[in-house]
């Protein structure tokens, strides 16, 4: 039925297929992990992704598991369809279990359909090991299984497994007094509110926020890439080199922190929004630290995220060094399946012309609802590239619950893999023998509430990549 339809795609004819042993579809953390894992098993690997990697929207933190959220409401759900936007008898959910100090010991408490339960804790551990190797000295946290607690730009403290070296001096477990610097022109970030929220969260250090004049030298809505570039090149701002100008703006506030007894401490560390250089970040931080006589750290931000961009650069360099071929810019729009239940080729839309890319095994790592690896409309939720089965309630009013912070069924939508990472059809049978899924397109995890997105990508990416290589070698 479906397979027969797909094999007759006329547009496949006419050109020779671009061939590889393993073809990875996607460009994020899961896709890169899968590609490198497959390559290390000896496979000849190619990676194709539609758009520039969404890593540039990521905070740059590598979370494994920060919380185990409740999957049952505190009281029974109200009868009948949910009532979006109406304050009628809202459902209520218990607080999640966490922040967890050890992600590994909590895996058994996750639902059975969670990707960690399916691929196992060892996959997570090996995925993190691989990440540590690829990230090298740019990342910290690999010395322990335990989570670190890091302030994020909303003012909350987040449990995370790995963090950029640039954020290291900002650890919430550090008891040295800290100054948080903000700029009026960066409207999505208020340093004083941030410091206040940290204090309210009970951090073990004294903290103050200060708004300084520096970014004011730029246009009011200058992009943070503009600020980063100015610091990278140490451009002159009104006659003063940018790094010196920034240090001078911050210096008057080094004694802003007042402790409980009313005494004034000179701060030992200063936190900035994450725009301290792009290519030259290390040099920018070192010079600021030297001028201020205090450690300097970056606070991870939402998009646009320089830590995400830096990670993207680093991982693509690793991909290149591994000998993986990759291309970005054209989407996978269909598949060509054989009678024996495998996929022979996918078709890539190269600006109007569909070109077949054949492989012995495929890894699908196209992301979730945000990354567009899953598509939805009022009729249903679909996996658009391969047409894989996505488990979902038939009535879309069962896709969500009233409480925004409750156990939203849609958050766990995605393909359901077997222990080798192969997606299953509606009857629980492997849909294609040579297709493996990784990352956000895999369902079963509520990554936003669990703080598990990167870990799921690493664990499932590792398994999918290795298994695809094994399949290709047969």
């Amino acid at each position, binding site marked *: 039925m479906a397979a027969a339809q797909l094999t007759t795609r006329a547009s496949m004819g006419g050109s020779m297929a671009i061939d590889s042993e393993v073809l990875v579809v996607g460009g994020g953390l899961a896709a890169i992990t899968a590609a490198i894992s497959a390559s290390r098993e000896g496979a000849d690997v190619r990676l194709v992704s539609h758009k520039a990697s969404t890593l540039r929207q990521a905070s740059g933190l590598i979370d494994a598991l920060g919380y185990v959220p409740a999957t049952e409401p505190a009281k029974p759900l109200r009868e009948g369809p949910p009532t979006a936007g109406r304050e009628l008898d809202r459902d209520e959910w218990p607080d999640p279990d966490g922040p967890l100090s050890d992600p590994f010991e909590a895996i058994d408490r996750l639902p059975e359909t969670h990707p960690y339960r399916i691929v196992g804790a060892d996959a997570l551990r090996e995925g993190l090991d691989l990440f540590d190797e690829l990230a090298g000295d740019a990342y910290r946290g690999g010395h322990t299984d335990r989570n670190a607690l890091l302030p994020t730009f909303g003012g909350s403290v987040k449990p995370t497994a790995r963090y950029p070296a640039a954020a290291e001096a900002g650890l919430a477990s550090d008891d040295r007094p800290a100054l948080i610097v903000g700029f009026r022109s960066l409207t999505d970030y208020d340093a004083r509110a941030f410091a206040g929220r940290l204090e309210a969260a009970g951090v073990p250090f004294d903290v103050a926020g200060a708004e300084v004049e520096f970014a004011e030298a730029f246009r009011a809505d200058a992009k943070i890439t503009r600020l980063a570039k100015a610091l990278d090149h140490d451009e002159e701002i009104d006659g003063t080199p940018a790094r010196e100008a920034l240090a001078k703006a911050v210096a008057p506030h080094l004694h802003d922190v007042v402790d409980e007894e009313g005494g004034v401490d000179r701060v030992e560390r200063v936190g900035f929004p994450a725009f301290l250089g792009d290519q030259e970040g290390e040099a920018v931080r070192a010079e600021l630290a030297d001028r201020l006589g205090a450690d300097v750290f970056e606070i991870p931000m939402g998009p646009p995220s320089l830590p995400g961009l830096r990670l993207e650069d680093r991982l693509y360099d690793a991909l290149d060094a591994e000998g993986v071929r990759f291309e970005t810019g054209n989407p996978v729009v269909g*598949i060509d399946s054989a009678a024996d239940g495998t996929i022979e080729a996918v078709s890539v839309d190269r600006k109007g012309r569909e070109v077949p890319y054949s492989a012995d095994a495929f890894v699908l790592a196209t992301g979730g609802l945000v990354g567009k690896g899953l598509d939805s409309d009022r009729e249903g939720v679909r996996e658009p590239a391969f047409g894989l089965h996505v488990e979902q309630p038939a009535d879309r009013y069962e896709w969500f619950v009233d409480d925004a912070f409750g156990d939203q069924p849609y958050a766990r939508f995605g393909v359901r893999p077997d222990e080798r990472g192969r997606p299953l059809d509606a009857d629980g049978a492997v849909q294609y023998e040579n297709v493996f899924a990784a990352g956000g397109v895999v369902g079963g995890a509520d990554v936003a509430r669990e703080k598990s997105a990167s870990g799921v990508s690493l664990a499932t990416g590792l398994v999918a990549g290795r298994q695809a290589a094994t399949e290709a070698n047969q």
Partner: protein
Amino acid sequence: MTRHTADDDERGESNGTGAADRTTSDVDGNGPAERPATDGGVESATGGSDSMELDPDAYDPVDVFPGGDLDLREGADSCYKCTSCDTSCPVAEVDDEFPGPKFQGPEQWRLKRKDDHDIDESIMSCSNCMRCDDACPSSVPLSQMHNEARGQFVEEQMEKLSVEYVRNRILANYRTSARLASMFPKTASFAMNFGPVRWAMEKTMGIPKERDFPEFATETFREWWKARGGAQVQNPDKRVAYFHGCYSNYNTPEVGKAMVRVYEHFGYEVMVPPQGCSGTPMFANGMLKDARRHAETNVENLVEAIGEGADVIASCTSCSMSLRQEYPELFDIHGIEDLSEHTFEALEYLRIHEDLDGELAGSSLADEQSFAYHAPCHARNQGLDRQAVETFRDVDGVNMEDVGDSCSGISGTYGWKEEKYEKSMAIGEEMFEHMEAAEGDVGMTECPTCAMQMEHGTGYEIKHPLQLLEETVVA
């Protein structure tokens, strides 16, 4: 209500995911179903009636705005403000007066729908590198929005007697100048780079004196093609029509010759139909009428070649970009979709249709050479930014080093404007540094204006991948 179900289906198909859509509905058995109207067959504005308050079927919205080919509303609505486009913009990185692609695209598109709202003149600072298209996770047609806004600004708001307009028009119509210059190539090459002339050009026209005008070839590609008696291989089964563009014809015919020799080596019959400018410099300057005039010539002649079994091959990645993407986005000309579908970049086409890896496996370059390769932004948008590195990676005697993903900064005519010169060089700074750090002292790129900038910033000789392919495969 059923009307909207039908609309939804159409949208699914046009997203290019038709096959997968069908699979899903087949497997699940819950494809679009006909539902009875909820209100006795009379459609209400909200698609429901009061008595059906909690029935999900009653909530479906209606399309309030008319659709149509040129309606970019869907694109504007797809923007969820992640600012990935702004982060990828090379101009915003050096010019904090430039509000970035998110404003120039979806935000300005909404503003300009109001009759009394002018287009912001900052649209002229967009270099049309199109990196925002590649960065957008929601497929917002940013460059299309920029091109339309720029066209409208130039048409309606720009003073037609201003130095800027005249200068931009001359730059955009490079083919016209090049055609005249190539009638007296040596004189032109000398005069265009003669100090006093350049001083005067900067003062009167705003063309920066720092830049060297490209040399004009003493024999254009088309003259060479005619002199050699046209195609040397006849093959009705393997035909390509070469879109050489202006630069390979007037300035670097060696690229065009390499294309012909390489393709003939692989047994292709090469056709060289009459052609104008691809339109790239005209889009970047908002001269859409000029671009359309040339497009009509190109579509007519290239579609004729397609009718004779040819695919269209460009050696310049901006030309292939224009024919593939900008043409169908901006113009409604009969056959323009066919042209888009049949156009490829030269190396891309060989990688798809020939066993290039096999062909290169035993080959080597006589004199060992390292190349500093820069991927043009327009190559990036076609998924071609890695092809040169990957094609030549295993060739003996060739060391191909990618100098990174920064923009060269020239973006065609952008770097040829006095007021943009410094920004152009600031954007290119990173590429220059990486080129200097790379092992090789020969540059490589597919784009002629990137090549100009690479040479200008480093003094390196710059080659096209086709030239290297000629040296390794044909020689």
